[in-house]
């Protein structure tokens, strides 16, 4: 029982982060139609900025969420306006735009990653913050992990309410169904697409801050989280935001069950699930 709880809670905590990362990516693909390979780099930027803020300026990582999130939003918004907008105008069809925007995001990944390497260097860094532990029914957990879980779920819930209840949220949902028709219905479509890309980047930035509290960071950490994000997004159904939320937790729990059995097999299990899922049910668990 204790072991079962141990595995489940650890899985949930990891799953919260995965869900947050994947929701951002899902929003970018589902609405803005950009399969953003540079997503992991926004996570890295969040984590490394938090590291610098904490070690140099002594800013609490929890406060850094409020700094890195908006910064990543602005960066994402501007990038969409400068790059992807141009591609969308010149692309003859949606399919061509999806391929070319994905390739452009590869370029973006190289640019951000190597800028970060020039700024921070390749070293792995870690800081310690909130190292207390607490116990549930005899199993020990780090407090910071609980905080990251609360933050991840909180951001997910706020975002869901934003989508479901506000006028802008409605515009985003309309754009997700069909961008050009949403544009005809009076939605300022260029603004909404850039907004979605920016919001996705903001979620990645916030996730990066939370990741830096628990795990070591480096300028090349983005790739690892990118692959997790891709797996979760496919698991939940490409472009489905609730699917990504559920998929994140599912993957977190699967990961911690496999880790309990053999740590070396976690990534192999993830990729196996991913490859099999693509073959059997490419729409994912909540796909249309």
């Amino acid at each position, binding site marked *: 029982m204790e072991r079962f709880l141990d595995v489940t809670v650890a899985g949930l905590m990891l799953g919260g982060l995965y869900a947050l990362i994947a929701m951002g990516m899902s929003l970018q693909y589902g609405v803005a139609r950009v399969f953003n390979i540079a997503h992991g780099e926004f996570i890295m930027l969040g984590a490394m900025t938090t590291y610098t803020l904490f070690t140099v300026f002594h800013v609490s990582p929890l406060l850094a969420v409020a700094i890195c999130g908006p910064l990543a939003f602005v960066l994402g918004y501007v990038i969409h306006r400068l790059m992807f907008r141009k591609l969308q105008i010149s692309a003859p069809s949606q399919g061509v735009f999806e391929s*070319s925007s994905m*390739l*452009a995001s590869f*370029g*973006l990944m190289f640019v951000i990653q190597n800028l970060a390497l020039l700024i921070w260097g390749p070293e792995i860094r870690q800081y310690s913050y909130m190292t207390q532990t607490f116990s549930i029914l005899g199993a020990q957990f780090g407090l910071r992990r609980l905080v990251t879980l609360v933050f991840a779920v909180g951001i997910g819930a706020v975002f869901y309410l934003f989508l479901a209840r506000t006028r802008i949220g409605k515009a985003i949902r309309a754009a997700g169904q069909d961008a050009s028709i949403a544009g005809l219905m009076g939605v300022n479509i260029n603004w909404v697409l850039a907004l979605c890309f920016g919001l996705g980047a903001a979620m990645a930035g916030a996730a990066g801050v939370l990741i830096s509290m628990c795990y070591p960071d480096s300028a090349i950490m983005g790739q690892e989280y990118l692959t997790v994000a*891709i797996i979760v997004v496919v698991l939940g159904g490409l472009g489905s935001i609730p699917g990504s939320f559920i998929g994140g937790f599912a993957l977190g729990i699967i990961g911690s069950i496999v880790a309990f059995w053999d740590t070396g097999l976690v990534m192999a299990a*993830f990729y196996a699930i991913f*490859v099999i899922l693509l*073959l059997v049910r490419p729409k994912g668990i909540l796909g249309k």
Partner: protein
Amino acid sequence: MEDLMVGINLLAILYISWFVDWALKQKKSKAWLFSGLVLIMLAVLITLPYYGPTYSYIMLTGILMYLILTVSWSIFSGPTGYISLAPAAFFGVGIYTSAILGKEFPVLIVVLFGGLLSVALAAFVGAITLRLRGIYFIVFTFGLVLLIISVLLWYEIKFTGTRGRFIVAAENDMIYYIMLGIMVLLFITGYLIKRSKYGLALQTIGQNEEAAAHMGINVNAVKIAVFAITSIFMGMAGAIMAMRWTYLDPYSAFDVFRSFLPVLMAIFGGMKRFYGPVLGAVILAFLEEKLLTEFPYYYKLSFGIVLILVIIYLPDGLVGLVEKFTRRIQGVKRAGA
């Protein structure tokens, strides 16, 4: 000095690829007008180890590796629009073949075997991914490479106890010759595929797969066959390249970067013409050989910037630019006459 030698040989390769492209456009086989020059160019390439410094053909081997990956990638992915991120998988299969069989068998057999194993993998992957299109195909091939890395890493640590393996090294000029031989085979295969009805079938699939199927093209057979045939070159290149590196582990053998680079090089060069990917690969791989070790971060940074600019402003790559200029010059001529 070495750069000059390498540059001359790269021009020779470019000429050969231009020749293939030119030959493709000819209606009858009058194509052998320029063939004398091609033989001279081949002679320049073959004799490089006799007149060039050692470093020049080591460097050319590295460039040829990227060229082979890029051209064989673009034969399938160029016309069909199926963007495969699996080159690293086929290349890695070749490397591991070399690591396992290299001690017991002669080099040529190992290389051939590496290629055939890649074909087997490609045929299998092709057969199971028939239903996947667009972004799903891209993501699947990407995941495949990562799956292979992590399973292999787990296997190596669990059962052999070490991460990596040593490979029996081969002579530098031998590696160069085999690489050159693979390139020539690749060019001939590319010519034959493009010239045959299968080349047209591939283009039709890229434009409209349903329409292609209705016209009586066996879409699945053509896709799987070409995907598998082109992967043989990636596997062979991996098997021979491994003999230069002597040590490898799953991460270096299945380096994901090797899946991205062919895509970027082909797009940079432009996929409308046969010499486009060759041009892209020659330029970028030469720069990589020169700059990667000295300024890795600046190199990759500018690489990213160039990629973004090319995708936004030059969707047809360098070939598009060249064609624009020639059209302009021809236009001026016509206007004058």
